[in-house]
């Protein structure tokens, strides 16, 4: 796409685009290339000199059981956040879309968790599940569960998933509702005239037409679970207990800043970069050839 009418000026466009490009180079391209360079270097014991080690940092990572474990944890965490979040919000959106009255009010009352920071979401749910004053912790204790998410890894994962999903439901709900409202009513009416009940109509007409929205939301939610949940983990569990909630993004920060393993952390950064690029490519290939029916 190009404009037919443009302005003539030799220097002005460079001046206009300069601030954006300067920040992009200084704070994006330069550090990203540094991460790639550091990932093949190792510092000596005194931190004074570094030397080339080839792929050794990467090999060490994939031989490190904690790193492999962190991969598994991230996979489990993002699968749970994505599936639970999407199913719940789809159910809510379908329900709200069916109702004639109140849809706007429900929308207003459901969208605001989007504005809550992941770290604050973690703090709120951490308090609800806190052994002692926490209401849900108390209910679970009454039900006979030995509840303490600061000590039990599975319980910690549960709380982290609840907090991360809670924050994302409003976003999914908004997009599902918009997708549902853009489906022509005539299609659904035609199916009804042919004798299809509400459930049949949903699976044969509505759901296939909603699949572009669903696919888009899957990518967005996976990206969210991978990269935007650092605050949830840091405020709720600090990756623990015993590294049971240490997702990749948390580990890259921990190894770099707390454990001071620059080469290892840089190698992890490079792996994360590959993951983001893969996800972005998937997202944009899909957008180019939108699913048609």
């Amino acid at each position, binding site marked *: *796409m190009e404009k*037919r*009418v*443009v*302005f003539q000026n*030799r220097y002005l*466009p*460079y001046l*206009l*685009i300069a*601030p*954006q490009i300067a*920040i*992009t180079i*200084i*704070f*994006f391209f330069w*550090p*990203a290339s*540094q991460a790639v360079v550091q990932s093949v270097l190792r510092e000596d014991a005194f931190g004074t000199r570094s030397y080339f080690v080839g792929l050794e940092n990467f090999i060490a990572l994939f031989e490190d059981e904690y790193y492999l474990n962190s991969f598994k944890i991230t996979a489990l965490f993002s699968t749970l956040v994505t599936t639970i979040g999407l199913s719940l919000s789809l*159910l*809510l959106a379908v*329900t709200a879309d069916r*109702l*004639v009255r*109140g849809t706007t009010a429900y929308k*207003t*009352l*459901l*969208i605001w968790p*989007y504005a809550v*920071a*992941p*770290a*604050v979401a*973690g*703090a*709120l749910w951490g*308090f*609800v599940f806190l052994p002692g*004053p*926490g209401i849900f912790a108390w*209910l679970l204790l009454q039900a006979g569960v030995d509840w303490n998410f600061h000590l039990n890894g599975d319980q910690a994962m549960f709380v982290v998933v609840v907090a991360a999903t809670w924050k994302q439901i409003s976003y999914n709900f*908004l*997009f599902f509702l918009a997708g549902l409202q853009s489906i022509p009513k005539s299609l*659904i009416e035609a199916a009804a005239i042919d004798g299809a009940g509400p459930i049949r109509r949903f699976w044969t007409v509505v759901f296939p037409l909603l699949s572009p929205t669903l696919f888009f939301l899957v990518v967005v939610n996976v990206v969210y679970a991978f*990269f935007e949940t*650092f*605050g949830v983990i*840091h*405020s*709720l569990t600090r990756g623990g207990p015993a590294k049971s909630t240490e997702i990749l*993004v948390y580990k*890259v920060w921990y190894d*770099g*800043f707390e454990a001071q393993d620059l080469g290892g952390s840089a190698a992890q*950064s490079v792996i*994360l970069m590959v993951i*983001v*690029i893969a996800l972005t490519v998937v997202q944009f290939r899909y957008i180019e050839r939108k699913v048609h029916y």
Partner: protein
Amino acid sequence: MIERRPVANAFGHLMLVAMIVIVAFPIYLAVIAASHTIQDVSQTPMPLLPGAELLENTARALFDGPQLVGVSGSTPAIVLMMNSLIMAISIAVGKIIISLLSAFAIVYFRFPLKNFFFWMIFITLMLPVEVRIIPTYKIVADLGLLDTYTGLVLPLIASATATFLFRQFFMTVPDELVEAARIDGAGPMRFFFDILVPLTRTSIAAMFVIQFIYGWNQYLWPLLIASDYKYQTIVLAIGRLIRAPDAFYEWPVIMGMAVLALLPPVLVVVLMQRWFVKGLVETEK
């Protein structure tokens, strides 16, 4: 609506209301905790109905901050919120300004390397802070920007999404406007300020809402940059307080602070809902 199903409808309303209650529950509980004395909240379980101390606890959070045993000094929420506000507004305004300028250059000029620059901006989408964390920290440190507002804001104001959004909008502006402006003798900057920017104001408002929330809710970046409490944000403080090691927790004040931390962005979303939804939908196009 095809069939009339009063029972199903009633059930639908019931389910949505139940969900709204569940979604709001943790915040309700935070407000309740903030309205009691520390002794009441330390009961198992804590009370579920509001107490009388809300104002006092909120005032403590705002002007004193919670007292923690084993942690020296505490920062009043008013200072933290001020930092959050400075960060959120600077990021939102900064992103909007540099993205308007670069979108203007990309749409309204032809120049060598234009596509190269466009792709450079596009690729930043693939490089979130999390994947270049230590080198970016090092650069900010080398520039002497640790513990400064510039360090908190500047690295975050490059924006591919805002640039795309404004580019998309500029493409829909009729060419006749440029021609008319030229005939009247207006140069490019005159056209930009007097015609283009006023036309873009709804997109600017939508972008502002989205980016304000983004800036207010930053966590990892201030965690790296702001070690001096004078520059810490309220969201960062909540994340730290909630797991402070061996601290004696003053829950009413901490939960009061959590409510203060989420109130401004939630108010922005609720009061500016129209622009918020527009911004969300458009940035994902």
